[in-house]
């Protein structure tokens, strides 16, 4: 049977098993929206800005482990989507974005709402397509989902000119995809796995450093935890890797890097073998390169060969999927007669316990003074047993959430790590809450970041999402202020807000519940009220100590053991 391009779009999404898409209509996608109206295979969620559609798709993907899907119109719709695409690209989150385009015969004519979307998004996507014939639409959509969800995952954009959505052709859904130029490797090379096992057993001071790849890979988190206990080796996570090992696992040393824990950074500096698992040696992690794990041999497991030996030389590279390679490695370790040197490990743990003794995340909450932001995070952990989905924006609040919340499970921590996009939080939480309707979803944000996508409160209201927004309101662009305090002699250039809205009233204006918390003794009550709410979103505007700084901190250009502790 012949179908229109718009009907093919719907058919393809149905076959991909899509249950939810986030979007915003406009002229170039009207025919598609008409078909969306007529079908009931998937839900469409109307956000309030195209950037949010991409962040929501990102949040949905990270919680569900499935592909996030967004649809935007041509021109401004597509340019608004760019930040969201770039964000998912930086954090390797699988999303497919459909954009409308002017009709093929108008392309290149400076037509109304025309943008060179494929050109603009080329470096913000894993791959992108312009569909030029309706006959190519189905195969392109199939390839887009395939590319987005395999190998190193990421966003793929499909640009569809309006005439293609109206043209017709015989619909045939390609059952398989085979792209000869794209064949990601998932099995680790057996010889390399054997060598890795040998190195791990010979190490006296092993250290596991895992990242976003351990969270996104199927089975990655469980096997990481298993490997740590098998080797009795310490584990540190990147910001993106948090949740891959439970926070109360005795092997876990916390996050490493610029705002990592003292014990994690010292252990990386002191280890003789570092095994990187789905992590990319980002500059926020390594600090000065020659001071990073200076005494260690490095094993690096990653699906993307270009992550390996990019910043830090890997003595033993293993290209493959974390879950699969760790399974191979665990099997190999189990087969071996030799075991790790328990005496050496005991000495290593003793040293680590010494570093732990510094209690680097310690802070004092005076019982009658201003609320400390860290205290708010600790209480949120207590109120949710560490089981909530925590979504953040970017800044100090993000780092405090990473340091103090304490994650028990993977896919419960959503933050913009690579791009550091202020405004990510609330829209990502929409997607997260929709992926896990029964989970408690908390946005931890700042008074600056929250104002970048506040309009999504309307979406939260419309879809009855009981999201809790906790604003750690310090009146500053706190992270900027901290750098100005430390490196610009306290010249607070444009990092202070002289005008802030009444966030509680703003929440109410959007149909939610707003509570302002100024005293410590109001905090638990407000949190428990929010935790009990099942239908309406709630905004807790928590007035916190204005000039609190995030510590520990590795100053720019320093090695990671050269930390400022307070």
């Amino acid at each position, binding site marked *: 049977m012949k179908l229109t391009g718009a009907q093919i779009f719907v058919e393809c999404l149905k076959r991909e098993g899509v249950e939810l898409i986030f979007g915003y209509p406009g002229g170039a996608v009207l025919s598609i929206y008409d078909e969306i109206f007529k079908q009931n295979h998937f839900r469409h969620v109307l956000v309030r800005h195209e950037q949010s559609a991409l962040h929501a798709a990102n949040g949905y993907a990270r919680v569900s482990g499935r592909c996030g899907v967004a649809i935007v119109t041509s021109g401004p719709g597509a340019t608004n989507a760019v930040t969201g695409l770039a964000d998912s690209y930086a954090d390797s989150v699988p999303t497919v974005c459909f954009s409308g385009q002017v009709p093929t015969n108008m392309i290149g004519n400076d037509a109304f709402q025309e943008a060179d979307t494929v*050109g603009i998004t*080329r470096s913000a996507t894993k791959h992108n397509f*312009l569909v030029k014939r309706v006959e190519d639409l189905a195969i392109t959509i199939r390839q887009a989902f395939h590319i987005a969800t395999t190998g190193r995952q990421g966003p793929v954009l499909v640009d569809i000119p309006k005439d293609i959505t109206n043209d017709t052709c015989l619909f045939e859904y390609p059952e398989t995809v085979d792209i*000869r*130029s794209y064949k990601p490797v998932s099995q680790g090379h057996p010889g390399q796995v054997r060598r890795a096992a040998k190195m791990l057993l010979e190490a006296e001071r092993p250290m596991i450093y895992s990242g976003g790849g351990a969270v996104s890979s199927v089975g990655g988190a469980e096997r990481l935890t298993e490997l740590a206990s098998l080797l009795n080796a310490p584990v540190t996570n990147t910001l993106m890797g948090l949740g891959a090992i439970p926070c109360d696992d005795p092997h876990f040393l916390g996050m490493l890097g610029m705002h990592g824990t003292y014990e994690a950074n010292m252990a990386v500096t002191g280890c003789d073998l570092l095994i990187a698992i789905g992590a990319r040696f980002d500059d926020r992690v390594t600090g000065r390169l020659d001071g990073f794990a200076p005494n260690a041999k490095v094993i690096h497991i990653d699906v993307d*060969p*270009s992550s*390996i*030996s*990019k910043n830090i030389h890997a003595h033993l590279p293993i290209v493959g999927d974390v879950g699969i390679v760790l399974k191979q490695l665990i099997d190999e370790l189990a087969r071996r007669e030799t075991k790790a040197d328990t005496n050496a490990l005991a000495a290593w743990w003793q040293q680590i316990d010494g570093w732990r003794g510094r209690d680097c995340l310690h802070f004092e909450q005076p019982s009658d003074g201003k609320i400390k932001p860290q205290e708010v995070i600790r209480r949120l952990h207590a109120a949710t047993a560490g089981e909530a989905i925590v979504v953040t924006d970017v800044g100090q609040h993000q780092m405090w959430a990473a340091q103090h919340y304490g994650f028990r499970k993977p896919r419960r921590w959503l933050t913009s790590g690579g791009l550091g996009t202020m405004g990510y939080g609330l829209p990502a939480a929409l997607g997260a809450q929709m992926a896990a309707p029964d989970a408690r979803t908390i946005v931890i944000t700042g008074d600056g970041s929250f104002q970048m996508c506040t309009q999504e409160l309307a979406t939260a209201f419309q879809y009855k999402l009981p999201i809790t927004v906790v604003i750690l309101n310090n009146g500053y662009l706190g992270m900027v202020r901290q750098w100005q305090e430390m490196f610009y002699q306290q010249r607070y250039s444009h990092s202070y807000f002289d005008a802030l809205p009444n966030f509680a009233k703003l929440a109410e204006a959007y149909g939610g519940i707003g509570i302002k918390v100024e005293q410590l003794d109001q905090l638990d009550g407000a949190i428990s009220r929010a935790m009990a709410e099942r239908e309406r979103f709630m905004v807790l505007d928590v007035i916190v100590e204005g000039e609190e700084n995030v510590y520990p901190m590795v100053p720019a250009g320093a090695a990671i053991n050269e930390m400022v502790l307070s």
Partner: protein
Amino acid sequence: MRHTLAILVENEAGVMTRVTGLFSARGYNIESLSVAPTLDETISRMTLVTRGDERVIEQINKQLNKLIPVIKTEDLSRTSHMERELVLVKVQAKHETRAEVLRMADVFRASVVDVSEESYTLELTGKAGKIDAFLRMLTPLHIIEMTRTGPIGMRRGGKAFAVEEK
């Protein structure tokens, strides 16, 4: 270090931009680039000359392979290979220099592809060094216009650099 890379890509719109975009976005430089379809018309072959230390070249190779339409790359500089380049050069040739231009063409075994009252256009293929020397010798005679293709290259011996190695 100068490296000559052979790259097989899908012969489709936008692939060149993806390759050149990668180089500009990551701050690598392209000394020359030449592209044309192969015997299999669905595939194009690029020869790209770049510079960088071992780490940079390794990253360039990996990043190229990460582009979806790139099928395969080979660093020719690591193999025993040959390179050739083609130049077209239009040289001023008025009465007193006409013979001299032809003599140069003869010495370098270049052929004359166009003649006018005031000029000869010469064509030469060879290694980059030979072309450089040719142009040096012609410069005093006044080069009106010149265009060169940049090198193309191939591994020596009987094996092919192709999608399925035979």
